[in-house]
């Protein structure tokens, strides 16, 4: 889930401190700006301006602006204005929901978190993009992101770049003690325990256990890799034997000491920090962490391996899908030009540029065979396998509500306030009551 990727400290573009003065500044500036807008007429030769709204995605925008420039050259008469929203995912969600429910035509193309597409499609705010995604084109993408953008059989957005949960492990320590990377969850627990017993000051396995969206991403991976899940043929099916067993295993990670108790305070960055200072054998995180482990000065540089997350015996691995998609607003005044822009930005060429410049992982298979890309980012080889197993969180228009219920109940199961059975039963009950 890319939420905190954009909120984390590495991209502190909108600091929390000093929001007051900024807010006042904006308030004061609004009349000035609107006055300026009405007074200066648009340049005559430009027929169409497409506005592209997205969260703050890029530190250095050169490569991204280069892409937009290329699009303008290829489409004479169309200009693109790129406007960024606050980095916090909640703020973006709220902005889109409020503008679109007021049928705002202020923007044409929007970047959507993977969990919003069904919600916005059902509300009738997104254009059906079937024309951009014929069967042959659809086959170019991994199946997870395609599933995430599909609502009632039609695509309402195109995958732009993707993310999924991976397992990081300490290559050096596993070698030293004669282990190979684990294939199943019980193996992981055993290895973590064994290495921890022999190395001083080490934690076994850290992940994201705080009550927030990331916990849902983590927990679903256990449910899925035990043949369970949250939704079965469009109905909520939480209190199942497979799910209970999976959650009981998660709880046992804490009680056995494989995972430290404080995992219930960890989000992505604090978890990465524990592993990054060399204090844990295993870490579950998103692919972004790789580059940070390998950068100069990192305590674990050259000692880290990446692999597909383990699964329960006799089952298959699964990874929670994150990432961003591009959709076209139903209220756009220039739908054709907007669709062209979506097509261009999700094209193989554009995704390659973004992958090279920013390390964003493309949702198209073919790029994982790209020699130049692999030379710079060799871990893409492993990620290809991960992405083939990536699954979207429940594709429902009520995902945000469902997630709030799941966050609280999974947290109760992980901290041991409720047994897995109790937590799943009350999640099931709440979900049936609260989701319309």
């Amino acid at each position, binding site marked *: 889930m890319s939420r905190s990727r954009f909120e984390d400290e590495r991209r502190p573009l909108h600091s929390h*401190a000093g929001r007051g003065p900024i807010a006042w500044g904006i308030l004061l500036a609004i009349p000035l700006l609107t006055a300026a807008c009405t007074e200066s007429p648009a340049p005559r030769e430009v027929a169409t301006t497409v506005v592209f709204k997205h969260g703050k995605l890029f530190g250095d925008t050169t490569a991204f602006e280069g892409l937009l420039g290329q699009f303008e050259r290829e489409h004479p008469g169309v200009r693109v204005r790129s406007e960024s929203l606050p980095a916090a995912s909640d703020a973006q969600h709220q902005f889109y929901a409020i503008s679109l429910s007021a049928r705002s035509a202020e923007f044409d193309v929007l970047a959507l978190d993977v969990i919003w597409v069904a919600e916005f499609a059902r509300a009738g705010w997104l254009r059906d993009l079937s024309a951009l995604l014929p069967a042959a084109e659809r086959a170019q993408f991994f199946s997870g992101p395609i599933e995430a953008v599909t609502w009632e059989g039609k695509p309402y957005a195109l995958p732009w770049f993707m993310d999924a949960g991976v397992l990081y492990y300490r290559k050096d320590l596993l070698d030293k003690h004669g282990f190979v990377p684990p294939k199943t969850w019980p193996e992981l627990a055993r290895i973590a325990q064994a290495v921890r017993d022999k190395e001083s000051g080490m934690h076994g396995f850290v992940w994201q256990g705080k009550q927030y969206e990331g916990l849902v991403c983590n927990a679903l991976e256990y449910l899925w890799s035990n043949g369970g899940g949250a939704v079965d043929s469009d109905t909520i099916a939480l209190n199942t034997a497979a799910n209970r067993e999976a959650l009981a295993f998660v709880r046992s990670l804490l009680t056995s000491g494989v995972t430290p108790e404080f995992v*219930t305070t960890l989000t992505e960055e604090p978890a990465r920090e524990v592993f990054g200072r060399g204090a844990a054998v295993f870490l579950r995180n998103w692919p972004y962490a790789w580059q940070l482990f390998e950068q100069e000065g990192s305590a674990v540089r050259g000692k880290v391996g990446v692999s597909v997350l383990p699964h329960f015996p006799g089952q298959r691995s699964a990874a929670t899908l994150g990432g961003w998609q591009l959709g076209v607003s139903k209220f756009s005044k220039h739908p054709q030009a907007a669709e062209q822009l979506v097509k261009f930005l999700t094209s193989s060429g554009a995704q390659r540029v973004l992958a090279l410049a920013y390390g964003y992982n493309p949702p198209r298979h073919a790029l994982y065979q790209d020699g130049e890309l692999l030379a710079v980012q060799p871990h893409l080889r492993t990620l290809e396998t991960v992405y083939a197993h990536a699954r979207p969180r429940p594709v429902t228009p009520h995902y945000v509500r469902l997630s709030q219920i799941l966050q609280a109940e999974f947290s109760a199961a992980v901290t041991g306030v409720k047994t897995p059975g109790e937590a799943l039963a009350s999640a099931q009950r709440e979900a049936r009551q609260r989701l319309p």
Partner: protein
Amino acid sequence: MRRDSAAFLAPAGVVLALVALLPMLLVVWLSLEQRSPLLGAARFIGFDNYLRLFGDVRFWNAFGNTVYFTAVSVALEILLGLAIALLLRHAFRGRALMYSVVLLPWAIPTVVSARLWEWMYNADYGVLNYLLGTSINWLGSPAWALNAAILMDVWKATPFVALLLLAGLQTIPRELYQAAAIDGASPWTMFRRITVPLLAPLILVVLIFRTIDAFRVFDAIYVLTGGGPANSTETLSIYAYKLLFQTLEFGYGSALAVSVLSCVGLLTIVYVRLLRRSGK
């Protein structure tokens, strides 16, 4: 004369009506609607949101957390604040320095001090566990998290209480104590018979401020835990935030906001009654 004062007050009245009264009435109106941008047009549903609220387990959990947070933190703040005020009343070397040190927590913005406490509470390498020689999962265990938030609130608000009470103490005439001493009263008797009764009105004022503040607690908990683990720190304001800003249930969220407002209103009325009685 009267007309003049009305004219001078009018601008302030208009501004207050626009920025406080009007939005408040709007929220009350919203709370009677089923309204969410995702569901299309708003629908008037009367008191349905409030009925739903009464049957909402999560609401009662948040209500319980809020009451517990308010009661414990305000009680501790008053007791500690009073103790500090009594100490600071006496002249001693370095008193000026003490004033500033005591005030420091109150001067730091809540979000910043919450971040500081988050680090101190870190169960892996936090200074608190280091000093105590413990390995308590302060923010990650449902048994501790709300108490950890209370501790931070006490640390932050006690200076405010101490300062107000100190101001109150300084208005009590010295002669009263001197007379009592001549009559052979013990310090404890003097405290009970002179200090407490004369300070009572001020203590009530401080109670009003602190209770209202604590009841609406949001920023500290939002930074420390976000309402977790297992909703053990979800207060009414955190729940309202999640409804209004995350799931965008404007109608239901407004009903919750109005209920918080009513609770605070009720508390204020009770306190003001008490204040009047103690004034007589």
